[in-house]
């Protein structure tokens, strides 16, 4: 296997750049911020080569606005940021959700709150990804655990965004973003790429927000001659604001339903050694790596442990967690925060199992040993 040239060493941020290019990104607007900057830097170099556009805007708000504008003009568009910038983008993310503008927002999580420890890892933005903007907006957020998965989920983020006309958040953490590991990337041709559905109706009768069979309205680009109107106000199928509560109700419920009802479900988790597991570790992102090592070691020691790894932070894989909770004696939820995923686990498990949080916020990754220790403690009380 010497001189294996298909395999290469890439960081998560670099893999994100590659994934975006494979998915067909043609526009990036951003503002530098550690630990996400390499994504901007990679696309600044790569986009002009494919005839795309890179722009560093005056701030994150403007970046998010430009991304929405570009997407409406018909190109696949993305931005990348970290905590403070993610906070600033929230208002416009809500616009993208409301006006159904496909786009990808990468948040490489760093230690917060506030400026925090700018170069240290954390998973403190998971709830923010869901609830950061005002009002009841829907969102999708994906949480890769490896460099290769960062590539894959970047592609999937674009695919979901385009298919469902919705902003999709790619939630990295500093560890996944910055670590380099061996990956083999598929050739671009073999990557499954989804493009938005364009309308076929006559511009005169076209209703830009009339949903298709999957609840998603086909989407023309500016300049295609449809003369359509886009607004963040509640609107009806024509796209114009009506001020009527019923129209708003119908719209907002559909925005949620198009994601909730999608087949196959958007929500998804990896299950590993779960069939007979008595103790289930629920972990996402970089922490899932430690969790997997701990579960393997626990099995070696004869403990029936398993791993449930949410791949989508949002929608949260409720069914998978509920199911596992029904069967498990305990669930351990290690996170690099004071307890965010664990709240969802608590919520959906309905008291069916004992839930044990394991939180670390000292800027270090939770180790396999820590998780193993917790597994052993719990196992000691299980029977």
């Amino acid at each position, binding site marked *: 296997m010497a001189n294996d040239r298909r395999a290469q060493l890439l960081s998560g941020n670099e893999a994100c750049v590659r994934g975006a290019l494979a998915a067909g990104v*043609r*526009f990036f*607007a951003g503002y530098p911020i550690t630990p996400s900057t390499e994504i901007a830097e990679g696309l600044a*170099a790569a986009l*002009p*080569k494919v*005839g795309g*556009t890179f*722009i560093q*805007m*005056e*701030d994150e*708000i*403007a*970046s*998010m*606005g*430009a*991304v*929405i*504008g*570009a*997407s*409406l*003009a*018909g*190109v696949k*568009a993305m931005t990348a940021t970290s905590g403070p910038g993610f906070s600033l983008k929230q*208002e*416009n993310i809500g*616009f993208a959700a409301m006006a159904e503008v496909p786009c990808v927002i990468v948040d490489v999580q760093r230690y917060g709150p506030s400026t925090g420890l700018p170069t240290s890892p954390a998973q403190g933005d998971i709830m923010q990804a869901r609830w950061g903007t005002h009002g009841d907006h829907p969102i999708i957020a994906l949480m890769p655990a490896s460099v290769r998965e960062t590539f894959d989920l970047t592609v999937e983020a674009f695919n979901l965004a385009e298919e469902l006309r919705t902003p999709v958040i790619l939630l990295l953490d500093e560890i996944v973003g910055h670590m380099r590991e061996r990956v083999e990337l598929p050739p671009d041709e073999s990557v499954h790429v989804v493009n938005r559905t364009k309308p076929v109706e006559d511009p005169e009768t076209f209703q830009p927000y009339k949903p298709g069979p999957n609840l998603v309205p086909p989407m023309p*680009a*500016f*300049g295609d*001659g*449809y*003369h*359509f*109107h*886009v*607004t*963040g*106000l509640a609107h009806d199928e024509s796209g*114009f*604001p009506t001020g009527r509560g019923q129209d708003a109700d119908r719209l907002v419920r559909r925005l949620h339903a198009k994601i909730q009802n999608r087949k196959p479900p958007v929500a998804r988790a990896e299950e590993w050694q779960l069939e007979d597991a008595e103790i289930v570790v629920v972990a996402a992102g970089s922490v899932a790596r430690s969790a997997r090592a701990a579960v393997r070691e626990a099995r070696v020691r004869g403990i029936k442990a398993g791993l449930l790894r949410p791949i989508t932070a949002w929608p949260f894989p409720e069914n998978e967690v509920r199911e596992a909770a029904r069967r498990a004696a305990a669930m351990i939820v290690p996170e690099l925060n004071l307890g965010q995923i664990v709240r969802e686990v608590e919520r959906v498990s309905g008291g069916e199992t004992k839930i044990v949080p394991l939180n670390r916020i000292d800027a270090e990754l939770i180790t396999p040993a820590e998780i193993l220790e917790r597994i052993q403690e719990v196992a000691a009380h299980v029977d």
Partner: protein
Amino acid sequence: MSIEELLERYTRRDKLPHIWCPGCGNGIIMGAVIRALDQAGVDQKKTVIVSGIGCSSRAPGYMKFDTLHTTHGRALAYATGVKLARPELKVVVLTGDGDCAAIGGNHLIHAARRNIDLTVVVFNNDIYGMTGGQYSPLTPQGSYATTAPYGTVDRNFDLCELVKAAGGTYVARGTTYHTRMLIDLISAGLGHKGFSFIEVVSQCPMYYGRKNKLASAVAMLEWQKEHAVPVKAAAKLTPEQLKGKFVIGELHREEAPEYTEVYAEVVARARGEEK
């Protein structure tokens, strides 16, 4: 083109009459924009109208183009994305004084700095209309507003000066009273390659007028007539004579490389193409 034809061709007639108050300048400016678009001969199918949030920013909803009603203050950021993604589109931004100069001030100066080919028309009614009469950065110092019951403390921007200093390459000021000149100014802005900016002194009789003893739209237009000095006439006046007046007309024009064109060169360079 007759008004009937103009309305038929350029407006979403079924959305009219509009929601603006009696005598509001927004309708006059929207009419001027439509006439200017017609006069400049832009391709309607390839034109995008972008606005922020405010009474004025409702204008695109009445206009038969691709229209984008964004978030408060961010019209220029969205417009920048549209233009960069498809430089062949004509992108026009309609915005209020609060939208453009308060919350949106940063996007304004940066878009001007980049000299990106956008045409910006500011509906400057000296007040926040939509939210009911608070002061804006263009409200003349000492005016009354619901958030300035003792008169405003803030000095107001000379927005045209600011845009010029930021790098805008076409800068003009018009009024709703001088409607014909306004059409010409906007039309010239549409013809200019680069960042073009037209401030329109307008009227909000509902809030600015009521609070500041300008009882009606008519009184406010009278005020414009009396205080506006065309740029040529202004050149002959001393600063003292100009005090309390404002200058209208084309205030600045320069030729400079336009952003998307320079970017196209970068693309060529990155691809190793000759230029």
